[in-house]
């Protein structure tokens, strides 16, 4: 097997806060091949963004810290590099597209300056070369009248256009890997589709590898070759895209798929949400992290944490972290479409959730006083 572009082994990233140590990424391992698009899916707080930031060592060092693991990019361990080497990779071999284009671009600098920065730094272009290349890039990502708009400021663009600018910025030095953190979440649905199309075309044309991070299964469906599902700081399922949608093998994934509205379902069929709240990453439970919200749970789920292993009745690369679906488990032959688990367990979960302390209401938050 050819050497992978990116190999992450047992990554642990933690944040040291007043309330305790938050284990945001708690033992994550995965690979990405050159030119491949990997989807990293999960709800807010599951650790997917922190994983991406760790890859570029963008975690703010107090309070965060990458405490363990290795990140092999192009054969070299990013975590062992010194600061200069890491800076040499950022924007150059690995680039990142952030979620909110409104705040991720500097409002007082022209986009020409913001894109040229990386070109001048990494590719050692001079100002006029960089400017020419910037205009080319803007054209490439579909910004109309690029030559005229290159000296504009971010606030003069719409949301979708700004995200295209960010994409141009990421592409500027022809990186081998682009991390896209919720690139379309802040955009309108129609613009989302355009941006995703753009990304797909760019991936194909430049053979760039992508890690697409999102909470939206719909986004990864058409874009990725493989998908990893994250929950509670760990990866809980790995599969090829088509396989994941056709044959998911983890109750959390079932829950995710069930909560997506589908055109082909009966009009009166209910959307089944996953009850409960995400797990506490400071003092995670000893067993499976999804157990408190899982309708299929059994005692062993609370006692011991399952490993991420290959699952019977599925493709060879398909792994899941669940006692029930593993070899010998009680969910091996379950048709998740029909069986929703023990209804008594469902009632239990609902009651437990009801006993949680209330979250602060929006009206409780006072506006921040002026800072002097």
């Amino acid at each position, binding site marked *: 097997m050819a050497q992978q572009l990116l190999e992450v082994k047992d990554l642990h990233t933690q944040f040291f806060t007043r309330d305790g140590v938050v284990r945001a990424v708690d033992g994550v391992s995965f690979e990405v091949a050159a030119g491949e698009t990997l989807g990293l899916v999960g709800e807010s707080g599951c650790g997917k963004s922190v994983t991406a930031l760790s890859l570029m060592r963008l975690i703010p060092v107090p309070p965060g810290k990458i405490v363990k693991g290795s990140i092999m990019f192009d054969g070299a361990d990013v975590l062992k590099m010194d600061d200069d080497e890491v800076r040499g990779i950022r924007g150059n071999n690995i680039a990142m597209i952030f979620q909110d284009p409104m705040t991720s671009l500097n409002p007082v600098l022209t986009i020409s300056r913001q894109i040229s920065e990386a070109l001048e730094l990494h590719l050692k272009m001079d100002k006029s070369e960089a400017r020419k290349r910037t205009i080319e890039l803007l054209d490439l990502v579909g910004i109309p009248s690029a030559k005229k708009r290159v000296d504009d400021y971010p606030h003069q663009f719409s949301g979708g256009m700004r995200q295209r600018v960010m994409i141009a910025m990421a592409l500027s030095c022809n990186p081998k890997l682009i991390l896209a953190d919720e690139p379309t979440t802040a955009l309108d649905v129609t613009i989302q589709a355009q941006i995703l199309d753009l990304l797909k075309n760019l991936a194909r044309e430049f053979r760039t590898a992508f890690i697409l991070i999102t909470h939206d299964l719909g986004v990864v469906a058409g874009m990725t070759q493989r998908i990893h599902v994250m929950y509670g700081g760990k990866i809980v399922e790995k599969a090829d895209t088509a396989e994941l949608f056709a044959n998911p093998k983890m109750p959390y994934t079932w829950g995710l798929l069930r909560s997506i509205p589908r055109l082909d379902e009966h009009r009166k069929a209910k959307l089944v949400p996953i009850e409960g709240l995400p*797990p506490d990453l400071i003092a995670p439970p000893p067993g499976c992290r999804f157990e408190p919200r899982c309708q299929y749970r059994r005692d062993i789920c609370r006692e011991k944490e399952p490993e991420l292993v290959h699952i019977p009745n599925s493709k060879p690369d398909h792994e899941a972290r669940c006692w029930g679906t593993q070899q010998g488990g009680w969910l091996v032959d379950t048709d998740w479409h029909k069986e929703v688990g023990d209804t008594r367990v469902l009632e239990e979960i609902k009651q*437990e959730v009801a*006993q949680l302390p209330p979250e*602060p209401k929006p*009206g*409780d938050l*006072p*506006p*921040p006083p002026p800072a002097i």
Partner: protein
Amino acid sequence: MATAATTQQQRAAEINVTVRKQRSLWRDAMYRLVRNRAALVGLIVIAFAALVAIFAPLIAPYDPLEQNGPKQLMEPIWTQFFGSKFTDPAYILGSDELGRDILSRLMYSSRVSLIIGLVPVSIVLVIGLTVGMLAGYVGGVVDDFLMRVTDVVYAFPDLLFVIIIVATLRGTALGEAYDGLLIIFVGIAVVNWVGVARLVRGQVLSVKNREFVEAARAIGAGPGRIMRKHIFPNILAPIIVTVAFAIPGAMLTEAVLSFLGIGIRPPTPTWGVMINDGFLVFSTTPWPVLLPSLCISIVLLAFTFVGDGLRDALDPRSKM
């Protein structure tokens, strides 16, 4: 087999552990304020000053106005260890140029200073809140009026305006009332209510379009109720902070006015007046200037620390 009830309780206990304890925002603010050591010290100092102010007539050794010719400009008793021959155990902190006991004058000064800190600021608060809320929520004539007034008042600095008001009206009946105290109240109040009103207006504008206000309106709440129960609690934080800083501001204004000679009329002592008087005899003995300077500095610092602490505590975004 354990009964369903106990398993449920166990589970509830476990789940509780896995969810971070939620603190109500006001309790969180209190917690953070108390954790701030500087603010805590400030609060203690203010409490102490308040006690001195309230009980001054009982604990001051002398009448602050009582003059004692032969005992002028006595030095504080500790200076005798440095060779001073001008001490008198009856006057612990020494006496001023008219023989009045400095300690007693300092104590009585705290009364005036605290009154100056609190009374005009309360007036400012009431007027500013009312006008600001009306201007922000109802808009219209009140809003326009506020904007025009602001433009004029903002044209010059507060202190200048207060000086002009106080200086020119000193001779009038208004200026004479309460030894000049009233005109100082008026001066401070007139100048500062505009700032508060503007702040309130801005806050109201930003809150009134939030969803929960719309929701309240949708269920039929009237403007009065909305202003009272929905808008007001949500604009409190910056207002509290502003008030916390306005109190020392007022005290400072009085000190400056007294220093320039247009403050409280003699013989009422305030720290500003004492500094002014003391400055005249500075070359003879520095204590009549230094002691009230120290007092006012400490109290002002205390208020500033508390104000800073309040601001940090009430800011939901700050991670301490």
